[in-house]
Structures are given as C-alpha cells and as structure tokens.
C-alpha cells in the first residue's frame, strides 16, 4: 500500500528516555476474568490479537521506525487504551492491527491469522474494525443506512441479511431513527456513531478507535464513549481506544503507553497514572482528578493518589476532609 505524508511534522523532540521498567508483554495483573463463558467463537484462544516483535518503517531507507519492536497481546473482551504523544506511533500501530499496514519485521496475528497473509485480508478486516478520527472522511454514502450497509455489501451478504445487520448496528448506536438522513446534516457525535455502526455492521470482534473523539465536543465525546463502553460490556467486543484524553483512558481496563514507537509501559489505569515520572517523561498528562491528588501530595498532604476518576477522587478527598474535621 502506498504511503503518503502530509505535514505530519509534529514529532515531539523528546530525548530517548530510558524507561525499560515495564515488560512489553503485558500478561500482568489486569486479567480480564470476563464472566462471559458464552464465547462461542471458533477460536477459543484468549488473545484476539497478538503482536509479536513488530517493527514498521514508513521510509525503509532512512529514519527511525514508526513502530519499533513492539510486542503486545490483546485479550478477547478487553478494553485497552493506548496513550502517547503526537507521532509516537499509535495510529501506525492501529493500522498494523487490521492489515492496513503490514509489519516490516515481526508479525501481527488476528485470531491466529497473520496480517501478512493476503488471502486472509478480508477476514482480518472484518474481525478488527476501525473507527478513525474524522467522521466526515469515513462515511461513504449520502444516506445513513446505505453507508452502514457498505461493509455487509462488500462482504457479499444477501440484501436481507445486510438489512438486518444495518438495523441492529444502527440500533446499537442509537441512530436507528436517523437511518434516512444525509450524513452532512448530523452532528459530529452522531456522524461518529454512524461510522461506528458502519463498522459494527460487519460484526467485528474487535474495534480500534483512533482518536475517534478528538474532533467532538464534550457532548459528542460522551455519546461515543458511552457507545463504546456499552459495546464492550454488552456485546463483548474488544475495544482498543487510542486517545489523548486521560479521562477516557482512565475508563479502560488496561492502558498501554507508547513512546517513540515503543510501548514504554502497560498496566491498569491505576498503575499507570500513579507513576508520575512515567507520565511526565512520555509527554502525557494525568487525568485531572489524579493530577489534583498528586499536587496535594507534593504539597505534603498525605493522600492516596491512585484515584483515576472523579468519583474515586471525591471519595479520597471527602475522607481526608472528614478526618481533618475530626482532628
């Protein structure tokens, strides 16, 4: 596939910091003991995607790899967030997952199938769906339901089957009543939900969201986040969420942090966000509640900094304040 570069020049000039503290394969504590025993998929291995020592160069002759010897296993039903500064290789990694890009070395296995195998390309793309950043550039037809039908049509389903898939996909993202609308008349969040429905209609087992909330306002962002959490929980779809919003990442079961093409850390949100040095070294920011707690701790107040969302933070703070009141 041809690669093309358009002013993607925003590469952070962070020096190569030496965080080798975490291992690359993240078989650590964040086990997803999903109570979903009803996995009837033909492939029962617990990993849906296995990334094995993958490197990828946009420019083979010179320059650094965009993805540099990455290994990672993604479990069925998992909700993984990927963080990293601009140009750290997140999108490249995402495109390696469904075979839009093919690794220069190492391999990516989806349900045990290598993305290098041309004959499985459709199979892999149907298993791992992608939702991109700009909803305008991924909607193909000028009527919502026809756009959602695009995937099933390509997969050669009968009109009746396609119709059923379109209906259930649009209902899953709460856009059924908009099925006859023109996409350009929808709000950003609605458009992005149509794009999600378009992917859902292929009935994927895993969906990768590449900064899919980046162009949305808080309301649209919430719509999309709610949708994907719901898909993860109720449809047992594996979610990989690439984001710059720490609050979104904090809702994942597991976070992987990318830095200069490498995965520099992986773990639960609590683990990742309690490592202040890691976060600042990789050019990221903490979720606001965590930031607040860290700042308090720096000021010498003895608080537990592991809270990653507002509810937990309020809990911690109110405990602290009550203690103070009693004293």
């Amino acid at each position, binding site marked *: 596939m041809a690669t093309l570069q*358009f002013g993607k020049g925003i590469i952070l000039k962070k020096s190569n910091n030496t965080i080798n503290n975490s291992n690359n394969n993240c078989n650590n504590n964040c086990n997803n003991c999903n109570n979903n025993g009803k996995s009837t998929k033909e492939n029962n291995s617990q990993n849906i995607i296995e990334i094995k020592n993958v490197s990828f160069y946009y420019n083979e002759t010179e320059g650094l790899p965009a993805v540099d010897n990455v290994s990672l296993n993604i479990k069925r039903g998992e909700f993984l967030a990927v963080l990293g500064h601009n140009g750290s290789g997140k999108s490249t990694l995402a495109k390696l997952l469904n075979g839009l890009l093919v690794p220069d070395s190492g391999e990516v296995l989806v349900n045990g199938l290598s993305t290098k195998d041309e004959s499985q390309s459709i199979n892999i793309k149907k298993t791992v769906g992608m939702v991109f950043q700009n909803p305008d*550039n991924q909607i193909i*037809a*000028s009527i919502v339901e026809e756009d959602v039908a695009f995937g099933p049509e390509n997969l050669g389903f009968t009109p009746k089957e396609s119709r059923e898939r379109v209906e259930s996909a649009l209902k899953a993202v709460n856009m059924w009543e908009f099925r006859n609308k023109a*996409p350009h008349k929808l709000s950003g969040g609605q458009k992005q939900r149509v794009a999600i429905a378009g992917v859902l209609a292929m009935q994927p087992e895993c969906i990768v969201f590449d900064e899919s909330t980046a162009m949305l306002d808080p309301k649209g962002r919430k719509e999309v986040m709610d949708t994907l959490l719901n898909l993860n929980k109720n449809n047992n779809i594996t979610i990989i969420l690439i984001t710059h919003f720490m609050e979104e990442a904090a809702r994942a079961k597991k976070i992987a942090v990318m830095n200069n093409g490498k995965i520099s850390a992986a773990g639960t949100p609590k683990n990742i966000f309690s490592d202040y040095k890691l976060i600042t070294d990789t050019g990221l920011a903490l979720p606001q509640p965590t930031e607040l707690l860290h700042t308090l701790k720096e000021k010498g107040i003895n608080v537990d900094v592991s809270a990653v969302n507002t509810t937990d933070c309020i809990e911690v703070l109110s405990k602290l304040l009550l203690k103070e009141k009693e004293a």
Partner: protein
Amino acid sequence: MIKDVSFGQYISKNSLIHKLDPRLKLFLLIAYIIFIFLASNAYSLLFITAATFFILFLSKISLKTYFKNIRMIIPIIIFTSLLNALYSGGGTLLFSYGFIKIYTSGIYRACFMTVRIISLILISSVLSYTTTPTDLTDAIESLLSPLKYLGLKNAVHTMAMMMTIALRFIPALIEETDKIMSSQKARGASMESGGLIKRIKALLPILIPLLISSIRRSYELAEAMESRCYNGAEGRVRMKEMHFINKDYFSFAFSIVVFSVTIILNILF
C-alpha cells in the same frame, strides 16, 4: 451559508412517481425526450405535452416548483423563438421592418419550439425532483450493467462508486471552501475587488488548500473503505434491491400508449 445546498433537487413526496423504480424512470425519461423530439406536428406535440403535464400532476409537486426550472431557461427560449420567427419564410407576411420579415409560419415555428423546450425541461425535472441522487446513481449503474459483458464490469462499478462518493463529498467540500475563504479573508485576502486577472489570482490561495485537503481526505477515505472490506466490484452485493412492481408495469404500459399515440398523430396529420 452555502452549506445547505440541496444538490440534486429531490423533493420528498409520497407519490406514484416517487415510488417508481429509478431505473424505469431514467429509461422512460430518455424515451420521453426522444418522443418529444419525434413529435413533428402540433397535434402530436400537444398530446405528449399534455401527457407530460399529467405526469407532473401525478408527482404531487406544485407546478410553481416546476416552472422555477423554466425561468432559468427563458433567455434560451426567447433566443430560439426569435431565430425561428425570423428565419422561416412561408405563409403570409405579418410584419416587416427593413430586412426583418415575420411570416405566420415563423410564429408557428417559434411557438412549436417553445412548447417543445418547455416539455423537455418539465419532463427532465420530474426525474430530478422525484429521485434521490443515490437512487439515480444506482439506476445509472444498473442501466449500464450490460456493459459488463464487454468486460467492463469494474469500469461501471468504479464509475458508480465515484459518483456516489462525489455526491457524498460535495457538501463537505462546499463547507470547506467556505472555511478556507473565511480564513484567507481573515488574513487580508480580498476576493471581490480588482480586475479579472487579480481575481483569478485571488482564487489560488483557496484552490490550493482545497486541493491538498481533498487529497488528504481521499487518502483517509480510502483507508476507511479498505477497513470496511471494500474490494471493488468483487463479491459486492447491494443491499437495496430494485424490482419492478405493478406500479412500474403500469407506468411502462401508460408510456407505451403515449408514445404510440404520438406516432399515430404524427402519421395522421
């Protein structure tokens, strides 16, 4: 502002004509155009024009809306009428002033041409008012589908896909042009003043960003399409099925009658 252009002129109504199979509509439109041209005397022309008006009536769209389209071509009508009036000699001389001579046959020709042009515009408007652009694209694709026997299956599919995407992106591009224009104006570009050359030059800072962003768009769109298992015409089955139902057969039969009567009137008078 220009965001809300209704590209295509589709007007949603619940009418017989709206519900017809788009392929049939497209096919019949072509046939009507041919027969309007074939109508060679006043009787046959008036007959097919009456049939046209009957179709307009069936479409439940107001005549006023239809005549909006005619307003735009009034200059053409005047021009052709004048030419016809001036250049046909025959019948009695009605009016002369210097070299300008107008005969009865000239007047007759002018009226004939006017009615013909108006019917053509009206019948074409029926298609564009009652068919969504998407349906139209599908109709074109399926009417061209016999070309696949000439080994052109992919070409037909690609063309239809290009039309679909173009329709989808016209509003987006208009919006974008708008944005770029505003931001260039904010930088002090002036687009409304100056001579022709200057104005054309002022367009460059709009066209170039537009071009670049379109290329980026198409790159992203290609990735999105690929991610959704797009593989050209290969193995693709459309969700929307088109079949002929009673309405379609009836309309087809009605049109055949209209065409036959037109021809008979041609021959009789």
